[in-house]
């Protein structure tokens, strides 16, 4: 079975302004890496636009309208100090959320084993009613809600290994037992949420890591916290909020993951997916701001997706 790559040229046109770390160059670096020979078997697909129905499963219609109303005809509009709109931002955001929904559809229809959505703007900081932290729409939450609503899934897990806590995803799913949200992130940095005590209705697991944490810590929390929780939940689909800014070369944080760690973690997630949900995994790009570290980490992650173990059973 194949691994799909969803992306769209509009995601390169979302312009955050001079010097902004969440730049189109991030996606260019990723796509260039994925055009190399080892990725020849990747099946590239154009992301469709998300529909209003898909967006409003997470965001109130008035919020969606407000975002589009602020997209400037030219230049930039700053929603906050971090979160910038340019003329193509609305289109890029639609393609980003649309990529996740399309990937969920294709994987759940068993046309592919798994998928990676190489998209921007990222989504996990966007709360139902608040854009922030480079994020406009909650791509992962929108994909999870789509899987529940359209495919009738009862249990969708979201694993978020971006170095920042996914406050937006958490806010979207914390009152619904059909979702399990697990996040590893660096403690005390942006956005300041993600404490262990934030447990939702028992469906949120926050694992803050201290600055300087690396491979050993990741393996420890996987074995003792993430894997047991994931297996107990018995997910029917696993979404990954795949940020690569916990890499030891990233300028916006101080965790010390490596490309090998991302490959290792991806393989572990795929093993659980093979046991519980026929390997059905959709991974979604979030952060990662050192271009070469980002490209190498995504390459390691996608390579692991392409080498996913065979499905043990079809539930």
């Amino acid at each position: 079975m194949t691994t799909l790559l969803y992306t769209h040229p509009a995601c390169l046109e979302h312009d955050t302004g001079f010097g902004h770390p969440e730049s189109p160059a991030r996606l260019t670096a990723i796509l260039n890496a994925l055009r190399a020979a080892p990725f020849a078997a990747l099946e590239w697909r154009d992301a469709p636009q998300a529909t209003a129905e898909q967006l409003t499963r997470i965001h109130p219609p008035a919020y969606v309208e407000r975002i589009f109303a602020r997209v400037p005809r030219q230049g930039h509009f700053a929603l906050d100090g971090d979160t910038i709109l340019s003329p193509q931002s609305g289109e890029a955001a639609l393609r980003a959320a649309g990529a996740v929904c399309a990937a969920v559809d294709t994987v759940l229809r068993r046309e592919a084993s798994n998928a990676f959505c190489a998209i921007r703007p990222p989504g996990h900081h966007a709360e139902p009613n608040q854009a922030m932290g480079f994020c406009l729409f909650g791509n992962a939450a929108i994909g999870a809600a789509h899987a529940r609503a359209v495919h009738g899934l009862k249990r969708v897990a979201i694993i978020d290994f971006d170095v920042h806590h996914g406050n937006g995803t958490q806010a979207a799913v914390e009152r619904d037992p059909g979702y399990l949200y697990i996040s590893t992130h660096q403690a005390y940095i942006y956005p300041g949420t993600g404490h262990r005590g934030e447990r939702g209705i028992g469906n949120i697991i926050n694992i803050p890591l201290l600055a300087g944490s690396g491979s050993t810590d990741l393996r420890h929390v996987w074995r003792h916290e993430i894997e047991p929780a994931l297996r107990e939940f018995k997910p029917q689909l696993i979404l990954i909020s795949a940020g690569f800014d916990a890499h030891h070369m990233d300028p916006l944080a101080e965790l010390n993951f490596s490309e090998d760690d991302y490959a290792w973690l991806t393989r572990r997630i795929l093993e659980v997916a093979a046991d519980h949900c026929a390997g059905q995994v959709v991974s979604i790009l979030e952060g990662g701001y050192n271009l070469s570290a980002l490209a190498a980490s995504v390459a390691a992650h996608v390579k692991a997706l392409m080498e996913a173990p065979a499905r043990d059973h079809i539930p």
Partner: protein
Amino acid sequence: MYEFLKYEVRDAMTADPIAIGPNARLREVEEIFENHDFNGVPVVDDQRHLLGILTKFDLLKAFSLDAHALAPHYDTIMEQPAEAVMTRDPVSVEPRLPLSRLLQKLVEMRTKSLPVVENGLLIGIVARQDVLKALRRATIQHEIPLHQDSPS
């Protein structure tokens, strides 16, 4: 070295140092650091009562990652007033303190300079370089070399 033991802080300090008010913007402080070889600048009120000290370390700390923004914003941070990031109630020394005692303090605290305060008012600042200079001055003039080869 005996001559050095007679020195007091007031003999080595820079008197009437440049100081800033609590509302000075970090942008102005940065400009002071650009133009002078200071590691820190004292923060005083209108009567020159010492309120705090703002060092390059404090300025760096203002840019370290925290929960406020995904990436620190240079312009926003540089518009903050000195009192937002200064070190309050800083350690200070009196002008009559023996310089040898000050040297000890600088070493123990690993600090680069200390404000000199008399009756609560800032009157000077004394830095590592001032002490080094005083050491050289004291010994060049008065120290007798330990092994003097005298012609027989």
